[in-house]
């Protein structure tokens, strides 16, 4: 499976607050999340909508881990969430079919 990740949707400013960066890195490494959403078997745009609905109910700063297996969702979900103002922390394959998207609920608008 060939999936080209849009680097732009991943966290851009690596020179941000050091403590914050370390905390994010730690969460990514530990895959420590506040909520996990299994969207295997779901297609776009429902993958995005369900991710957004979950984030809308979470507190600012909390991290959501979304599991998708629909290939276009690997690019589209992070891109759409980023457009909405959420922060994409990480996108990586977890096995042959599934990808994990780590997204942080941020204050915006």
């Amino acid at each position, binding site marked *: 499976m060939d999936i080209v990740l849009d680097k732009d949707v991943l966290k851009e400013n690596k020179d941000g607050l050091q403590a914050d960066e370390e905390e994010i890195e730690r969460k990514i490494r530990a895959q420590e999340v506040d909520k996990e959403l299994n969207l295997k078997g779901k297609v776009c*745009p429902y993958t995005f*909508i369900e991710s957004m*609905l979950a984030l809308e109910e979470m507190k600012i700063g909390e991290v959501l881990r979304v599991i998708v297996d629909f290939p276009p969702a690997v690019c589209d979900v992070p891109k759409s969430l980023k457009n*909405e103002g959420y922060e994409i922390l990480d996108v990586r394959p977890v096995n042959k079919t599934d990808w994990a998207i780590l997204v942080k609920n941020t204050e915006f608008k």
Partner: protein
Amino acid sequence: MKFSEEQIHRYSRQMILPGVGGKGQRKLSEAKVFIMGAGGLGSPAAIYLAAAGVGTIGLADSDHVEIHNLQRQILHRTCDIGLSKVESGKKTLESLNPEVKVQIYCERVTSANIQRIVEGYDLVLDGSDNFPTRFLVNDACYFGRKTLISGAILRYDGQLSTFKPHAGGPCYRCLCPEPPPPGLVPSCQEAGVLGAVAGIIGLFQANEALKEILGIGQSMAGRFLLFNALNLSFTEMKIQKNPECPLCGENPTIKELIDYTQSCSTRDTTPLQTSTKTCD
């Protein structure tokens, strides 16, 4: 409220829009919109608001469906001829979206009932076709502090505005303090109307209602849009609160609702039963 799988699928194409999302969809499902008239303007407006998932729609019209309505009043079908327009409208809206609660008022709106009706709604759409009703609805919205989205059509022309005097904007009477003398402005049954013009203006009203509910975009409050279908031209004017407005001005003379009467000549074969008969 948690969205069901079916709701997510039904509203997915608007939930993905910036400014809507789950929060906006929730606002829509909690919204209560009153539509005055289940005719040319009320039909498209009601259909699109129901389709968008507006939770409660009120429809008021005292007329029954007649064959000459079907050229533009798309809530109704040929098989609905003879039914009350609100019953026919309710049937159409509920078959489109069973989640929507449709409240119907098969009665002529007057000073005696209009305030009680609009009280239960957040937003009012005026799709009436006569000046007595138009002024009555404007005045009731002013007294009840309801946002009024006003549309009107005749021949190939349409107009649109939003009135929010409670938020500092003008009201309908700021533009037109009193109804014109009966007979001066022809009715649709005298002058005719292109069905698509009704659709366009009714949908502009639905569009503005959705924006007001969602709190997005630029409101039409303080703006007045004129549309001409033959040239496909739009003219927009700025409108301001009139300090001498008899309703919302500095020294208002109108303190209560007024039932105007309107006598109009008709080329229709059916004689009018009352002097304020609505024809749309």
